């Protein structure tokens, strides 16, 4: 028998450690800058922090206060309306466009960037254009009046009950193209033979999509849902640029609520409490997804 330690292969040992070593800065970064900060925020939500972090514990007082605030309830209601409409409409438009674009369309190469480009622009940039367009005094309504359609009315952005829908409209404009790209990628990944087989089986175009294609796009639906829902929860620029949370506070969302309590109202404790609620919501959506995603890959 040869000696076991004939060759202590240092390089081999190192090779075992290099991956972990190389990964560790990223992991450390995430642990500190994400999870450390989350813990910090949770901690803040139990303190009486106002302008700057303070370390005076007050228990659940901030949460009590938060759930007692009308504006917070408005924000939650709005988020519910906004998120459900936004996700559903984006998905429908994205899927429709993807399916239509997948019909061997001439000029696809030109149309695709047109659908995609809004995602490239920040709302800091396009907010003004949208505000104008939606403003009845100078925007669409005015233009229609100038063109002779006097009875045309489109004043949602000024209406407390409808303003949130203009936020949905602008948000859909911004991201539906991206959703289209995800679905298009999914469609292109489907094996053509399956489609041929279904046609030979006598499936009409409609039932082909409904019964075969759309079920096969499940992963794309899932990815779209996750991306859209987190964008919905994080939506901030959009509201600020479009309505500033108004009319009144009719378009307040949790993200704008949190920002204003933390930074402009000097009620950092309450702001932190609302952030914790938001994080919990995101976690409730993300963790099952992550779990499924990672388990499948094993």
């Amino acid at each position, binding site marked *: *028998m*040869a*000696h*076991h330690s*004939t*060759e*202590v*292969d240092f*390089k*081999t*040992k190192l*090779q075992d450690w290099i991956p972990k070593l190389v990964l560790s800065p990223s992991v450390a970064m995430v642990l500190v800058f994400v999870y450390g900060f989350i813990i910090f925020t949770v901690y803040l939500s139990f303190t009486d922090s106002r302008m700057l972090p303070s370390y005076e514990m007050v228990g659940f007082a901030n949460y009590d206060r938060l759930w007692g605030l009308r504006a917070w309830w408005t924000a939650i209601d709005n988020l519910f309306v906004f998120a459900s409409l936004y996700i559903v409409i984006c998905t429908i438009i994205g899927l429709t466009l993807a399916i239509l674009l997948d019909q061997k369309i001439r000029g696809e190469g030109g149309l695709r960037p047109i659908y995609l480009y809004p995602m490239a622009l920040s709302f800091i940039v396009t907010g003004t254009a949208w505000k104008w367009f939606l403003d009845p005094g100078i925007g669409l309504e005015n233009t229609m009046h100038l063109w002779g359609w006097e009875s045309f009315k489109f004043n949602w952005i000024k209406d407390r009950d409808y303003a949130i829908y203009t936020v949905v409209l602008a948000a859909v404009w911004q991201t539906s193209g991206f959703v289209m790209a995800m679905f298009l990628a999914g469609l292109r990944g489907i094996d053509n033979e399956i489609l041929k087989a279904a046609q030979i089986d006598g499936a009409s175009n409609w039932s082909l999509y409904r019964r075969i294609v759309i079920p096969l796009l499940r992963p794309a639906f899932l990815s779209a849902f996750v991306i859209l829902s987190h964008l919905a929860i994080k939506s901030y620029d959009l509201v600020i640029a479009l309505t500033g949370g108004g009319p009144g506070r009719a378009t307040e969302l949790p993200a704008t609520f949190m920002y204003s309590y933390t930074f402009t109202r000097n009620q950092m404790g309450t702001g932190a409490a609302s952030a914790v609620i938001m994080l919990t919501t995101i976690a409730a959506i993300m963790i099952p997804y992550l779990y499924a995603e990672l388990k499948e890959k094993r």
Partner: protein
Amino acid sequence: MGFLDITNVTKSYGNVEVLHKVDVEVQEGEFLVLVGPSGCGKSTLLNMIAGLEDITSGDISINGRVVSGVHPSKRNIAMVFQSYALYPNMTVGQNMTFGLEMHGVPKPEREKALADVSKLLQIEQLLDRKPGQLSGGQRQRVAMGRALVRDPDVFLFDEPLSNLDAKLRVDMRTEIKKLHEQLKTTVVYVTHDQIEALTLSTRIAVMNGGYIQQLGTPREIYDTPANIFVATFMGSPAMNIVPAKIKVDNGVVFAELTDAEGQPKLLRTVQSNLAAWDGREILLGIRPEAITDPDGADRKSTHLERLDNRITVTEPAGSDTFVTMTLGGRDVIGRMRADADAAAGQMFEFAINMEKAVAFDPQTEDRIRPD
């Protein structure tokens, strides 16, 4: 001590042991085939030899050197993968010399090795192409070429032919055999295809459930399988396994089986120690080629038994005709000459070469060895 020693090697993932105390000694120049169904541990064992997976306990040594903990690239091995694993971004030439380059072999030497090997494999005209532009067979050659240029102590093959179509597979099999005859390098070859195992190897290790079931030359494995698993796994069509009862009459040992009508039939066995099983059930293993029409029977055989039985199915296969009958309540296949006069439904006289028959213990499924 052999050239490649696998001593008491086990492998566990967590609490699950997937490979149990494996011992194999491979001599220099041998062609060892690891064969078994998927999940039997053969690829794991190969990866452990390559250093791609850790050994849980035990030792592997190559050319007298324990290689546990030694990086794959320092074991002086080369490996051919099932998917060929050609680097898609490199040309064929770059693919083949990458290993040499990594080992710091100077360019002129690399060029020379490349030229030699590509000539040997007749792939000189492919050297500037990318793998994506090659056919399956060409890729396979390149993958072998990549292993060959390294001039390793041991070649490892991981199901290298399973991605090829049937005809190419046969051709490449011959090719590999020729190369081995020519180069005489030690080879460990993993496959689930028993034909490949039988045709290529100098020795075969049949594996199942993380155990080596039998280690031996192709002839030993084929003729004297250690247990029912080996018996049925190796050979196609598989060996017939028929329940039979031992009857000793005047010192002559018979195996009694039932025919298609349920009538008992007696076959005289050559294995005298079966006398100890008198009155008990055994399982009788008979290869299809040992069941023939009387004219096609092995003339050299000293123990040909005749048996009348009804034919259920005949399957002409060109060179032979396979004939199925019911024996001991099971389908039993015999191999006739192509022109044997056999038709389904007919009574037929079979000749059974009892010299080639083996007996198994129905409890342990191990072969009952002759004394």
